[in-house]
């Protein structure tokens, strides 16, 4: 059993002590590079992905390693490159389409929802769309309302798409590799604030299944389900709860679609309390689905209503004095969980 710098425990079966640590950003790059080396059908297209290695520097080096044919700087045409992704995918390639900020996925909705998600089905199973849409989520960079959203719920709603929201470098690498190998369109949301986050990642090759939750911390009194960087927020709360004598179990679904409902429900049945934390807008977001699934599946075991904490239902404001209020804080998670156990 190995422990991340910040105290996250990873699945014991997978990690060995003394493993190397790399950043989330490096983990993504490794995953992409390994898959590009493994399968020449994989290519990357997006704005400033080649020369600049993406604005978050996640892809630096790929251009040198794989050349301009496979790491392609595009015009600022999100809808167009998503469409190119679909077309390339159904004709034998495995594109990775890079959408710089998750906020700009609003521009690719038609290609993802009406084309990518439905092509396999509408063709009666004949065409497949093995593409990955890489993008970001997460606030708190003082980037205001159009560069701070966590819009993963929108894609999670659409059958035919898979959606991954990795929290750790380990998960990021394993899920990215699976996403690239998957024969379906997968949207992967990377939290901008996590790119420098370090964590253990084994040297060797591994993939993680899409649709398998990970228990990041085992506990007895309450289940906290958290996604993406909210895993770290929740972890801080878990530590504080421990100090207050409350043993919390931290479950990370890792993918919202498919959702590992079983693990979520099992955990809630065991602890008899559940709290869901996600950085998307709370209304009609990920917390709603997860809470509904748990409240239904664990109904007869629950000692308290399932609570949820999403981002405030407001556009993300610029001013630091306001922005930090809009996203779930460790304190608030702690207080809420504590009250539930009271």
């Amino acid at each position, binding site marked *: 059993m190995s422990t991340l710098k910040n105290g996250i425990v990873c699945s014991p079966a997978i990690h060995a002590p003394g493993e190397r640590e790399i950043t989330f950003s490096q983990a993504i790059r490794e995953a992409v590079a390994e898959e590009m080396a493994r399968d020449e059908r994989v290519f990357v297209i997006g704005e400033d992905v080649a020369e600049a290695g993406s604005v978050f520097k996640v892809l630096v080096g790929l251009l040198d390693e794989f050349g301009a044919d496979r790491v392609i700087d595009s015009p600022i045409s999100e809808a167009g490159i998503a469409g190119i992704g679909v077309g390339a995918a159904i*004709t034998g390639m495995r594109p990775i389409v890079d959408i710089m900020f998750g906020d700009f996925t609003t521009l690719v909705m038609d290609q993802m929802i009406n084309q990518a998600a439905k092509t396999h089905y*509408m063709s009666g199973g004949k065409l497949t769309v093995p593409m990955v849409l890489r993008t970001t989520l997460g606030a708190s960079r003082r980037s205001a309302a159009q560069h701070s959203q966590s819009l993963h719920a929108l894609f999670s709603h659409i059958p035919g798409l898979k959606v991954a929201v990795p929290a750790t470098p380990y998960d990021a690498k394993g899920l990215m590799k699976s996403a690239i190998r998957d024969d379906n369109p997968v949207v992967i949301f990377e939290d901008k604030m996590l790119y420098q986050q370090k964590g253990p990642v084994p040297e060797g090759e591994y993939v993680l299944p899409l649709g398998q939750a990970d228990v990041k911390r085992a506990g007895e009194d309450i289940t906290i389900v958290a996604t993406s960087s909210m895993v770290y927020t929740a972890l801080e709360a878990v530590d504080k709860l421990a100090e207050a004598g409350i043993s919390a179990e931290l479950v990370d679904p890792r993918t919202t679609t498919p959702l590992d409902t079983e693990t979520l429900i099992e955990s809630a049945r065991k602890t008899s309390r559940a709290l869901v934390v996600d950085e998307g807008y709370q209304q009609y977001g990920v917390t709603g689905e997860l809470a509904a699934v748990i409240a239904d599946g664990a109904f007869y075991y629950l000692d308290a209503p399932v609570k949820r904490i999403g981002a405030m239902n407001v556009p993300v404001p610029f001013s630091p004095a306001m922005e930090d209020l809009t996203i779930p804080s460790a304190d608030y998670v702690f207080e809420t969980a504590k009250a539930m156990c009271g």
Partner: protein
Amino acid sequence: MTETNGTKQNGAELDAEHWLQAYEQMVRIRSFEEAANELYTSARMPGIAHLYIGEEAIAVGMCEVLRQDDYITSTHRGHGHCLAKGAALDRMFAELLGKEAGYCRGKGGSMHIADQETGNLGANGIVGGSAGIATGAGMSIKLRGTDQVAVCFFGDGALGQGLLYESMNMAQLWKLPVIYVCENNQYGEYTHNSKTAAGSMIGRATGFGVHAQGIDGQDIRTVYSTARLVVDRARNGGGPAFLVCNTYRFRGHHVGDIDRPYRTREEEEEWAKRDPLKLLEDWLTKTRQADASVFERIQQDVQTAVDEAVNFALEAPFPEESEVERHVYA
């Protein structure tokens, strides 16, 4: 808006057999569509369909120069493209009726009909929605290093969609082998394009540096020779092209649009004179390559095949209930 600055050729280099095949293909589309209409009016077809009648020369002229491994993307008005690229009548009717034997196992219907084996990447219910897909197919061709070509069919209405311009820009930047074929049948649904398209259609492609031509879409010989030009050019690395094929939707927007208050009967009659089947018949007759008896025989043979295909489809079973959950994910 009707624009031509295009190729005019007489097809003299091709023999009668070629043109009679093309003729048969056009007749096949015409008869297919008449039968689809009949299935609709007799309430045996679920939903609606958008008929290609009047525009046959474009799909057939373009697809004649394509190989089976070339790609096309199609539109809501997609039966003609599908047949022209080589799909079979029976499985197409089966799809229109929502049967398991249909090309999409009944999941697509008229608006998403496709036969991937003959290179059709699919009809599309989103106007302009396939511009990116065709361009991506072009990208895929370039990356895989084959000499295939992708043809993107769309209507004049799709000129309103920004995605088309994003796509053409990239196709030109990267010299992708994509032919954008605008089937300018003058209307988008119930609105004439003089109300919806400013400027020049061709200019919308030349602005991006894309080779563009406006041609007579009723004359299959013109379509064919222009297609030959731009497809060969694209195949040889010359990059994308944009064709505006001027044509007319002889019927309503869809099978249910029978009154057509938005246009005059006179206009319809004028265009009827330029029926693509008739134009080819006339030329073949005038040049003594064929006569009425030949055309009649072809029409009858096709009609028999269409009737059989319709019967096949009518008798084919619906998919089982379990089918509904299959193919959401691969």
